[in-house]
């Protein structure tokens, strides 16, 4: 008995250690954002705030570019969520109807794209050809469908009992009405899971903004953050004194990191409930 107990304690300790390691960096950033930059530079900051103040947050909220970038990211997330869900749900529903002629062929058509792709440059040239470059749609449409999500949603739709569909057909409902009135409400948990993943993706994405947009009007929050945190720190590292003088204080940089992840922190407890179940269905059946 005592041997068993001590084994559990060891396992628990290892897990707690790993959890601390993953959380500590984020915690340190939160501390730095509410601490006095000068004290941090002197190496005073360890595990609790030094010289607590919220000045950095006040300064960021006065920054017009931050607010604008925040708004661009909110817009992109809302539009992206709408377009992603519309396209993914419709194609997944049609592909979930096992009696649909050609279903298998269409499945192969979409699965091939998981194995082969054109790569960054040819994709860029096609997106350029469609005239989306430097519009908000360049951040929404080229990534509108994820094959993985389609497979997950299709699995959910397939598991809805077919008797519901049959009786609705008897009552004269067409496929679109059945999809909207029966399948969508029944698949709400799956739609929530996918929806939250899509929203998080759009909130965090920045490479497509780097590649497909140039104008400052479309600068997403993550790009603002990159310029503020990464470029400044790198310039300081390379000893670029002209940039050094512009390096904003550590507390401002960390406060913007924290603010950019605040929406994720806010939805995280809700995602938590859905995603484990959602991932498992995908893992077992996908």
């Amino acid at each position, binding site marked *: 008995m005592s041997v068993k107990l001590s084994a559990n304690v060891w396992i628990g300790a290892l897990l707690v250690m790993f959890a601390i390691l*993953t959380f500590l960096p984020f915690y340190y950033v939160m501390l730095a954002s509410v601490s006095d930059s000068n004290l941090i530079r002197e190496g005073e900051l360890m595990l609790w705030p030094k010289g607590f103040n919220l000045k950095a947050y006040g300064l960021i909220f006065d920054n017009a570019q931050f607010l604008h970038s925040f708004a661009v990211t909110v817009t992109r997330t809302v539009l992206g969520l709408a377009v992603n869900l519309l396209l*993914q749900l419709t194609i997944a529903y049609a592909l979930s109807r096992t009696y649909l002629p050609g279903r298998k062929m269409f499945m192969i058509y979409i699965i091939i794209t998981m194995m082969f792709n054109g790569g960054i440059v040819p994709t*860029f040239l096609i997106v350029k050809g469609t005239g989306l470059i430097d519009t908000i749609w360049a951040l929404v449409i080229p990534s509108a469908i994820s094959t993985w999500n389609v497979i997950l949603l299709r699995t959910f739709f397939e598991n809805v009992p077919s008797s519901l569909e049959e009786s609705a057909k008897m009552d004269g409902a067409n496929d679109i009405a059945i999809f909207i009135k029966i399948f969508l409400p029944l698949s709400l948990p799956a739609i929530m899971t996918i929806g939250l993943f899509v929203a998080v993706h759009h909130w965090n994405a920045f490479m497509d903004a780097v590649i497909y947009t140039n104008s400052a009007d479309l600068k997403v929050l993550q*790009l603002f953050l990159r310029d503020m945190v990464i470029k400044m720190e790198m310039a300081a590292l390379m000893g670029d004194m002209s940039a050094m003088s512009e390096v904003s204080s550590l507390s401002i940089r960390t406060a913007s990191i924290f603010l950019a*992840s605040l929406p994720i922190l806010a939805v995280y407890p809700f995602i938590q409930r859905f995603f484990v179940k959602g991932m498992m269905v995908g893992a077992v059946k996908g």
Partner: protein
Amino acid sequence: MESTTNLQSAAGQRVRRKSLAAAWSAAGKHKYLYALLLPGIVWYFIFRYLPMYGVIIAFKDYNFSKGIWGSPWVGLKHFEFLFRNQDFFLIVRNTLLINLYELIFAFPVPVILALLLNEMKNVLFKRSIQTVIYFPHFLSWVVFGGIVIQLLSPNEGLVNNVLRYFGMEPVFFMSKSEYFRPIVVISSILKESGWGAIIYLAALSSIDPEQYEAATIDGANRWHKLAYITLPGISNTVVIMMILKVGYLLDVGFEQIYILYNPSVYDVGDVLSTYIYRIGLQSAQFSVTAAIGLFQSVIGFFLIWSTNRLAKKFSEVSLW
């Protein structure tokens, strides 16, 4: 003889016409479903299949005004240029090394985490740990990379504060070549391992609990159960994840490297995808970079195919 073949072909035509008519009426019967299918199919065609066709610019001298089709063919010129280019080998080497280190050091971590979590019977404890270790997955690489860079900063970072506390000199981690790969691998482990454990936890949850009960009755201890029930229970999943990982050996997370690297560590940190971005889009050498991209996907496909064959041979597990 001729007349019978004529007859046969006429019959064939009639059958074909009939099946075509049947197909049309089936399509009509399901017209709403096809209407739901259509937007997605069109999207795949434009944003996934047209770029595949665009890969032919690797065999052309692409020119904006002439377009993909109008640009002149140059055969293997761009591939010859690559294979004679010292930079190209450096970048392939960096890509392979970073992935190899990830395979050795990062790949086992989610498996171990899942096994440890599986041993914990206290649900509340298990959930709290899971909540914490999944969290970094939901942060962007800008945010997580920013945190890593701040932590390692020579003047203000936690790591250097600790070093100073022990009387050591601060280290410029981000600009030293020898630290770049360890930083990439460790930051991947911290950001994605917890999330990666989900798939193994799913595999573990599908093991029949009766097996454990039977083993307990037979007098098996914890190690016996681990070795004879738990590990065999997830070995298929581990093999499949391994195949996928090997298939992406030439594909390193673009965003992570893009955020963490800087010119002073290009010699060890520049990988295929970041090179494609810098040379292809920033310097507009479209054809050469399309050639790199094609090289990358051909090798990647070959790797998946061959590891899959090996897996099939040794463990009867495979992707197809």
